């Protein structure tokens, strides 16, 4: 019992949170930047996947099959491997293959293939009839994309995005290995390597709170949209 009390005392001591608090900020920073990157890339890749389908707005059968295969191949790799593979790319872009900047690019690329497939699937749920109705008034393909498919699938996109962001947060835990810090790094360095259980628990608690907040916000936004449309 006294050991448990000791743990609690350590868990909420100022010394612990002097380490955890900056790690929280690092994780949030990493997640925010990667999230934006992932969002933009995922929407683009998802759009290309949708539009070039054999039954799409601009069918490109062979390209679609190849591009889809690349996306799925990337999806099947463990995130650690993708990070290692994409770090050289980060070097090309920002001139360094380590540290927060490089890892943020790698993190975004890790989750982009999954998010892109979710975007495509959300787009596909927009009924063919709506697309047909837009075509029947002479809408151009980009208008169908931006004014019909995107807004109609918005609630589903928001939900997919929430899932993808949470997946991204879980990957940030690995980022510590590449010098980017964050809560995962704290958990490994203090909790695992130095057997400081209270540090481990504090890092985990902080991660849980972040994930729950993201989930609650995502769900609230999606529900807000649905409510506005009275669906």
């Amino acid at each position, binding site marked *: 019992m006294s050991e448990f009390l000791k743990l609690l005392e350590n868990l909420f001591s100022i010394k612990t949170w002097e380490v955890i608090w900056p790690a929280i900020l690092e994780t949030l920073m990493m997640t925010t930047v990667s999230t934006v990157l992932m969002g933009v890339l995922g929407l683009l890749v998802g759009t290309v996947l949708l539009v070039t389908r054999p039954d799409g707005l601009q069918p490109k059968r062979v390209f679609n099959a190849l591009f889809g295969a690349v996306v799925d191949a990337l999806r099947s790799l463990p995130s650690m491997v993708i990070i290692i593979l994409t770090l050289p790319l980060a070097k090309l872009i920002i001139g360094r293959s380590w540290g927060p900047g490089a890892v943020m690019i790698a993190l975004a690329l890790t989750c982009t293939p999954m998010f892109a497939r979710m975007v495509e699937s959300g787009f596909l749920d927009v*009924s063919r*009839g*709506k697309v*047909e*109705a*837009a*075509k*029947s*008034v*002479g*809408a*151009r393909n980009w*208008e169908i994309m931006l*004014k*019909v498919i995107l*807004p*109609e699938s*918005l609630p589903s996109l928001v939900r997919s995005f929430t899932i993808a962001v949470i997946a991204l947060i879980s990957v940030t835990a690995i980022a510590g290995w590449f010098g980017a810090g964050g809560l995962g790094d704290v958990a490994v360095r203090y909790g695992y390597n130095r057997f400081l259980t209270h540090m481990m628990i504090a890092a985990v608690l902080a991660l849980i709170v972040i994930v729950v907040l993201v989930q609650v916000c995502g769900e609230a936004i999606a529900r807000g949209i649905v409510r*506005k*449309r*009275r*669906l």
Partner: protein
Amino acid sequence: MSEAFIQVRNLNKAYIGRGQTVEVLKDVSLDIDRGDIFGIVGSSGAGKSTFLRCLNRLEEPDSGEVRIDGSVITGLSHKELLAFRRKFGMIFQQFNLLDARSVARNVEFSLTVARQAKEQRQQRVNEILDLVGLTDRRDFYPGQLSGGQRQRVGIARALANEPKVLLSDEATSALDPETALSILDLIKAINRKFGLTIIVVTHQLEVIKYLCRHVAVLENGRIVEQGSTREVLTNPQSHTMQVFVEVNASLTGGFLQGGEGI
């Protein structure tokens, strides 16, 4: 032979799927006069909807020609086609409204696509909502409307660009009889007011009776019978039409004599 407003010549369309080819339209030829309300009847799978979609090329026919008001639709490039589609309005069984947009903005969509200036768009939206009787619902979302109101929005959207032809794909099939009747009345009124040519695809005999002046019967992708509604209904030649008329008669007139419920 004089030039009809809409001329369809030798239209063929087949779907190829899993090793077998299904011929949906076989050598379909048809003339439709300006200002007519023309019905296309047939049982499900007869090719009615495909035929309708070949007119504004939502479906590409494999061969044949569609000519409207002298222009050959089947020969247009993609860009020309987009402009030409604005001369058609189309309404659907499932309405196909955009849930993300209010009633007014659903109608405005057609006008934005046609590159109309903002003030013009607003004015036209008001006009057309007034025409279909939905002025007081302009800021509602489709999710808040009844089926009949949704179809009115569909009609408003279809008419926004002042098309020459209205294509109706089972527009009243998802509505209850009373609402369906009010939509049919609206379509009639539009035909009278603007002289719009209307092509109606349906499997409901009542729609033909109430609305159409001429009718063509499709059976397995072929036109098996056509003529004025009166001719076709009083002296049906095709199997499809004979069954339609018979079923209709047993539901109304014959019911008291031989009906199971008596």
